[in-house]
C-alpha cells in the first residue's frame, strides 16, 4: 500500500505545490478547481518522476520564509545598486570580472537555488558550475574586492541554504 502510494505520489510536496498553483491560477477555491488541481498535481509528478530520482529533503519552513524575505530585500538593494551603476558610472570604470565561489553545498537542488539567488541579487550573475560540482563561476558587474563578494555569498546565502537543504 505504501509502495503504491509512493508510486502514485512520488513527490507529495510537488503535488501540493501544483495544486496550490492551480488554485491561484483559477483565482479562487471551489470543489471543482480543487479536484482539477489534485488531478494535475498527481499526473505531472507521475509523468516527470524519471527526472527527479531523489526526493529533495527540505527542512525548517521558518528558515525558508526568512531566506525568501532576505532575498527579496536583497533584490530591492540590487536594483538600486545596478541602477546607480548604469546611470552614473562610466562603463570603462566598472571593474567587471569572473569570480570562483567554492561550494560547501552538495545537493543539486541547493546549488540550483544558490545559483538562481546569485543571479537575482547585487551585481552578480552565475555563469557555470565546475565539472565536479564543487565551485560556481560568478560574473560580477563591479567588484573592487572579489574576496568580499565570495565571503558575502557564502555567509549570506550558502550558510542559510545549508541549514534548509542539508
Amino acid at each position, binding site marked *: 500500500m505504501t509502495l503504491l502510494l509512493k508510486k502514485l505520489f512520488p513527490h507529495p510536496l510537488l503535488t501540493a505545490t501544483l495544486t496550490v498553483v492551480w488554485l491561484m491560477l483559477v483565482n479562487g477555491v471551489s470543489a471543482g478547481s480543487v479536484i482539477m488541481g489534485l488531478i494535475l498535481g498527481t499526473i505531472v509528478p507521475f509523468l516527470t518522476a524519471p527526472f527527479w530520482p531523489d526526493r529533495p529533503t527540505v527542512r525548517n519552513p521558518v528558515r525558508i520564509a526568512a531566506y525568501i524575505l532576505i532575498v527579496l530585500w536583497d533584490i530591492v538593494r*540590487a536594483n538600486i545598486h545596478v541602477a546607480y551603476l548604469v546611470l552614473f558610472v562610466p562603463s570603462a570604470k566598472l571593474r567587471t570580472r569572473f569570480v570562483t565561489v567554492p561550494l560547501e553545498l*552538495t545537493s543539486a537542488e541547493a546549488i540550483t537555488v544558490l545559483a538562481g539567488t546569485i543571479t537575482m541579487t547585487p551585481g552578480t550573475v552565475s555563469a557555470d558550475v565546475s565539472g565536479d*560540482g564543487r565551485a560556481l563561476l560568478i560574473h560580477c558587474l563591479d567588484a573592487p574586492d572579489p574576496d568580499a563578494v565570495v565571503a558575502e555569498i557564502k555567509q549570506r546565502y550558502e550558510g542559510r541554504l545549508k541549514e534548509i537543504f542539508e
Partner: protein
Amino acid sequence: MDLLIEGLIAFLIVGAGFFGIVGSFGLAKLPDLMTRLHGPTKATTLGIGGVLIASMLFFLWERGHFSWHELLITLFLFLTAPITANFIAKSFLHRRMSRRTELPPTGSSKGWATFDGPPIGADGEPMAIAPADRPGGRDGERG
C-alpha cells in the same frame, strides 16, 4: 484614505517604470554581453514587481477582492529569469572558447562544466537530472 492609496499605487507604478527604463538603458549602454546580462535580470525585476504590487493593491482596494495572479507572475518570473541568464551565459562561454584561459580556475580537479563534462555529485553520479538512457544523451545537446 482613498487619496493615500491612490498616491501609493501611482508611486509604485511610476517607480516601476523608472526601473524598467533603467534596465533597458543598461542593456543599450553596457559594453559587452556579460555586463548586459546584469541590466535585464535585476532592474526589470523591481520594475515588474512594482507594477504587480500596485495591481494587487488596486484590486484589493477598488474591487474588494484579492488577486492571486500577481503572485503567480512573480513566481514564474523568479523561476525563469535566472535560467534565461544561465542559458545566455553558457552560450557566451561556448562561443568565446578563447575565454577558456581567461576564466578563473575552479580550485578543484575538474574544469568548468561547459568545457569539462557534466557536474558529478558527491555520490559519483552525474548531477544533471536527465535520465542517462535517453537517446542522444547529454552530448546531443552540445551545440
